[in-house]
């Protein structure tokens, strides 16, 4: 279908793969509390979707989900609207910068004869940012999970204590989150969150840890505020990418088919799995996603004629990348489903025991 331009042709097999991506992303998203884009964006890129369209599609997909999630958190008092609004000011600027850079790299083209038909420069840029940012995030999460595993407790407060010493005015007080932070720190975090949400679609992965580790606010408020923020960032990102013609509505709908079912199962998992395990699973899955994307970098370099690769290496590396990605997603989902199943069994056992005592 040449009239589809940079958009991929979707047959039944591709559709099933996208729905599976959505399901795994949804389960992980419900379990981890972040958007799940860290899995869905590279997954779509592995299917041949140009990076900029994968990001644009993902941010649009996230917008609809965040719209419902934020209302629920708001009802439960987990949203610090003031903090959300302060972060939003700079996050919107960050998104605009990200969209401009993504679009520019996409128009640079590259690899017209390769698998990704002319988006190698953009894909390389997105993959490099993905690998750089998420490898740091995953190592940080894993380190913290292992550290807190030794002595039960909340997340590390070292960074928050350091940043709380920075008293550059104006200092803003946030009542719901119960913290005081310099506006400039909020602005920087907002800018980074917006930039990363716009570049790789994983703003929540930066926003939530930043609020927990840098601002030192409770995890529930951080997650709720991020959802509130994601609603506006998602809308702004969707508008910007749609303006550039980089949103594939078909992929958005297919992702929803999987993710809106998966998210409930993931959310159930959080009620029955220990926080340490949640952090460990999160860290390992992200790390595997990072490997998956890193494996693809030589392919883009080859398409841009910056690296020589022998024979069929492009296709092989792309397959290895897919295997890494799906292994991480499927094993993560298995861990969650096994935990859910074990929780059911434990409950049944208790009930059985109680009945036998009664009789």
């Amino acid at each position, binding site marked *: *279908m040449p*009239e*589809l*331009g940079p*958009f991929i042709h*979707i047959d039944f097999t591709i559709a099933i793969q996208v729905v599976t991506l959505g399901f795994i992303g949804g389960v992980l998203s419900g379990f981890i509390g972040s958007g799940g884009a860290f899995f869905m964006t590279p997954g779509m890129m592995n299917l041949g979707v140009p990076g900029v369209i994968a990001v644009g599609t993902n941010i*649009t*997909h996230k*917008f*609809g*989900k965040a*719209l*419902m999630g934020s209302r629920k958190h708001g*009802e*439960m*008092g987990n949203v610090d609207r003031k903090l959300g609004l302060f972060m939003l000011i700079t996050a919107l600027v960050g998104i605009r910068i990200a969209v401009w850079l993504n679009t520019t790299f996409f128009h640079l083209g590259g690899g017209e004869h390769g698998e990704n038909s002319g988006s190698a420069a953009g894909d390389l840029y997105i993959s490099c940012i993905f690998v750089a940012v998420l490898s740091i995030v995953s190592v940080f999460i894993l380190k913290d999970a292992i550290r807190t595993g030794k002595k*039960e*407790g*909340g997340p590390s*407060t070292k960074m*928050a*204590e350091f940043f*709380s010493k920075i008293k550059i005015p104006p200092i803003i007080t946030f009542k719901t989150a*119960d*913290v005081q932070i310099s506006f400039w720190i909020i602005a920087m975090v907002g800018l980074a969150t917006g930039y990363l949400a716009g570049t790789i679609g994983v703003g929540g992965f930066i926003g939530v840890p930043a609020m927990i580790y840098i601002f*030192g606010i*409770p995890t529930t408020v951080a997650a709720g505020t991020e959802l509130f923020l994601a609603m506006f960032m998602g*809308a702004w990102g*969707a*508008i910007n990418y*749609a*303006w550039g*013609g980089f*949103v*594939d*509505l*078909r992929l*958005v*709908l297919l992702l*929803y*088919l999987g993710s*809106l*079912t998966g998210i*409930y*199962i993931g959310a*159930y998992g959080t*009620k*029955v799995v*220990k926080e340490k395990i949640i952090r460990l699973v999160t860290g390992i899955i992200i790390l595997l996603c990072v490997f998956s994307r890193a494996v693809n970098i030589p392919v883009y370099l080859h398409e841009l004629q910056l690296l020589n690769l022998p024979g069929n290496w492009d296709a092989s590396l792309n397959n290895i990348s897919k295997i890494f990605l799906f292994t991480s997603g499927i094993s993560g989902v298995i861990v969650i489903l096994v935990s859910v199943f074990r*929780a059911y069994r*434990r*409950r049944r056992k*208790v*009930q059985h025991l*109680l*009945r036998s005592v*009664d009789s």
Partner: protein
Amino acid sequence: MSVITISRGTFSGGNILATRLAEKLGFNCVSREELSDEATKLGVPVGKLQMAMVKPPRVYRRMGRERDQYLACMTMLLCEKILEGNLVYHGHTGHLLLPGISNILRIRVLADMEFRIKSVSDRLKVGRDKAKDYISNVDTDRDKWIKFLYGVDWHDPLHYDLVVNLDQTGIDNAATGLCTMAELPDFKLTPASKMAIQNLYLSSKAHFTLTADSRTSYADIKVIANDGTVQVNYLPQQSEVAPYVEEVLSGIEGIREVHTTVAQTSLLYIQEKFDPESSQFKYIANLARKWDAVVELMKMVNVGDQSTQEELSPGIQPGSYKPRPASAEYNGGIEDDEVAESHLDSDTARYLDRLNNIGCEGGNSTFFGNVETLLHSLQRRTNYSMIILGNLFLSKQESVRKRQKAEMRSLFSDNLNIPVVDAEELQEQFKFGTKQIFKLIAALSVAAIIFAGVFTLQVPIINFLTGEAYKGYRVLAILLVVALTPAFAFSYGTFAKQVLKILRLE
């Protein structure tokens, strides 16, 4: 029996007023500092907790276990003193250590800043500026301390029955005035309040004992006591404490039975009457099972509600009317003394049995008071995942009942930071009837239409979104994206939720 709590700031004269008042009334007098010293002797890290207040919130927020131990110990010590006889307690917010106990006279003492500065200067032999700084620092630390312990702003006058400004009143006049007030029947403990104190004493003693014993100290537990029966709830990941609970509590006088239940979390179900045969039981049990939660039953007895009193009074047949004696004098609402004699009613006991059979029993309590006093009581017990409001205001007409329940829900939602739901809504949530089938079909239809439309017309839609020929309509393209996406998410999300509900996986 009477209990007076005096809430005082630093050097505000509350200390002297409490002593003077106790002398005049012939009551025992105890200060927060004395109880605190006793708690320290019992091994509670009071100093460590207080020192944490000068650190950022994220540091002391992690000391939840130490805070629980402190609160359990202070509540136990205070109840012990109350059970010894009439008491004047002076400290920060003593009444908050006694959740669910009504008829306490709660006084807040204020003093002019100049009076406080002079007192500090005289006592500590420091200059005016240093005295001012001292007061400001101590006040800030106390604000944080009370917020940390009870999550409230203690300056809010709504926490007290009376706020006394000693600036003009003076200590002697205030003491004389308060003596008269303390004699009012409203501020005498009723047998119901005494029973509640005994239950609170037993639960706090059991809780403190468990936190002080090395075999159980690390567990996040919840303890409820009712008439000698102690219910201990613990988290599944800490199930290794279960075998020790009974052994640790065996030495406590007054405990007849100990029940332990594993729970990921707990739900509080408030009703005036518990019917074990009601259809709502199924939905509550479903929710508890899904969440791995225990259900704590709270029977609410609205002391201001005449019909409730009639129902609870002995000798009254259902449907009969007990007129209020014409000559009845105002007695401050202590006419519900009979309530104290009533133990667990048979329906509530059966309800608890049914919960016990499915491993979801989380204990029970009876609350005597109105919605506002219940709110104050719950503000200290925030470890519930959800509060469910069941059959309440039963003496009222249906429309009034609905309105009052909606107001209660909104009040609790605003002040407790815990989801508050109506049991009827919960029923709706789990029910799958005609309405839900219609909802499922409607949602699926909308989602299917959008889906079919996008895939049937994929080439024109993609051209419209990206094509050069449609550049002038870019705004319409954006509108298409931002309108279709949430519409599909909402309709398909509703469909998915209903399907998962059928599969009991939501």
